[in-house]
C-alpha cells in the first residue's frame, strides 16, 4: 500500500496530509493521556505497536504470484482505537520512507490515511459490529484484522484512482488499482487475521484484566463467547 515518493501529484498529496494530520495530532493526545492516566496499558500498547512494526516489514508471496505486506493494525485498533493506531503507523511509515525508500515523505499523508486511519477505523467498526451481533470473540478479532488489512489496500486503490482517473472515470481507474491490490491481499489479510487471533488469545489468557480495563471485553466472563459489553 505504499505510494512511492513523488507519485501523487498536486493537490492530492497536500490533501491527504491535511486530512491525516489532525487525526495523528488527536492520536498523540490520546496516547499522551494513556501514558499519564493508564500506565498499566502501556505494555499492551508496546505489544500492539511492535506487532505493526513486525507485520508491516514482512513481504509475503500470494496466490497471484505477486507479493505484498500485511499491516498489523487490527490489533492496535481493537485495543486503542484508530487515532492511536494512526500514530504508531506514522512512526512505521516514516522509518520505511526514510531508511527503506519504501513509500515517501511527500506521500506520507496518503499512506498514513490508508494504513493508519481508514483501515484501522473500518477494522475497529468491524470489531464493534461483530460484538453487537454477538459473534464469537475470536471471529470478531479475525474480522477486524482482515478488514483493517484489506480496507487499507482498497483505500490506496481509491487514492490512486482519484489522482489518476481513467478517461472513462474514477470508477474504471479504481477497478484497475483494486485488481492489483485486492486479489493479492485477500489471502494475506486472512493470514493476518489468524495471526492476530493467536496474539489476542495469548493476551486474553495472560491478562484478561488489562483487556477489561480497556473495555475491549466485558468483565463478566473471560470465556471467548461470553465477553461482550
Amino acid at each position, binding site marked *: 500500500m505504499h505510494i512511492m515518493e513523488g507519485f501523487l501529484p498536486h493537490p492530492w498529496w497536500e490533501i491527504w496530509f491535511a486530512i491525516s494530520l489532525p487525526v495523528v495530532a488527536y492520536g498523540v493526545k490520546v496516547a499522551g493521556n494513556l501514558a499519564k492516566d493508564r500506565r498499566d496499558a502501556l505494555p499492551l500498547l508496546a505489544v500492539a505497536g511492535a506487532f505493526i512494526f513486525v507485520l508491516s516489514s514482512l513481504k509475503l508471496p500470494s496466490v497471484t504470484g505477486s507479493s505484498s505486506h500485511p499491516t498489523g493494525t487490527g490489533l492496535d485498533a481493537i485495543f486503542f482505537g484508530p487515532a492511536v493506531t494512526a500514530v504508531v503507523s506514522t512512526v512505521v511509515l516514516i522509518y520505511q520512507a526514510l531508511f527503506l525508500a519504501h513509500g515517501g515523505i511527500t506521500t506520507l499523508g496518503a499512506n498514513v490515511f490508508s494504513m493508519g486511519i481508514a483501515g484501522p477505523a473500518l477494522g475497529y467498526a468491524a470489531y464493534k459490529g461483530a460484538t453487537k451481533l454477538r459473534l464469537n470473540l475470536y471471529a470478531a478479532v479475525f474480522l477486524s484484522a482482515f478488514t483493517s488489512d484489506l480496507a487499507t489496500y482498497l483505500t490506496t486503490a481509491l487514492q*490512486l484512482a482519484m489522482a489518476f482517473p481513467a478517461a472513462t472515470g474514477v470508477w474504471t481507474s479504481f477497478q484497475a488499482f483494486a485488481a492489483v491490490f485486492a486479489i493479492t491481499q485477500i489471502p494475506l489479510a486472512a493470514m493476518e487475521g489468524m495471526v492476530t487471533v493467536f496474539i489476542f488469545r495469548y493476551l486474553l489468557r495472560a491478562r484478561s484484566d488489562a483487556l477489561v480495563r480497556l473495555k475491549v471485553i466485558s468483565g463478566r466472563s473471560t470465556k471467548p463467547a461470553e465477553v461482550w459489553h
Partner: protein
Amino acid sequence: MKEELIYAAALGIFFALLALAGSNQTGTGTDDLAKDAVLDITGGSYHPWLSSPWQPDESQGLLFGLQAGLGGAALGYFLCRYRKGSQSRPNR
C-alpha cells in the same frame, strides 16, 4: 529478566529471518504493479515529480530484517512479561 531476553532474542531472530527471506524473493510487489497501472492509465506520460534521495537497493532486505528484528524483540519481551505477570497473579 533472563526469560524475557530469551523470548526477545527468539522472536527477534525469527522475524528478522522471515523478513530477509521475504525481501529476497523474486515475486513482483503490488507497489510496483500499482506503478505500472499508473503508467498504463496515463499512457506512460506520468513521471514522479520527486524521487527518494536514498535508494538502499541490496541493503533494503537487511533494513526490513532490522525492522522485523526490532519489532519481534519488543513483541517477545512484552509477551513474556505478560505471561509472567499472569503466572504471578493469585487464582481467583
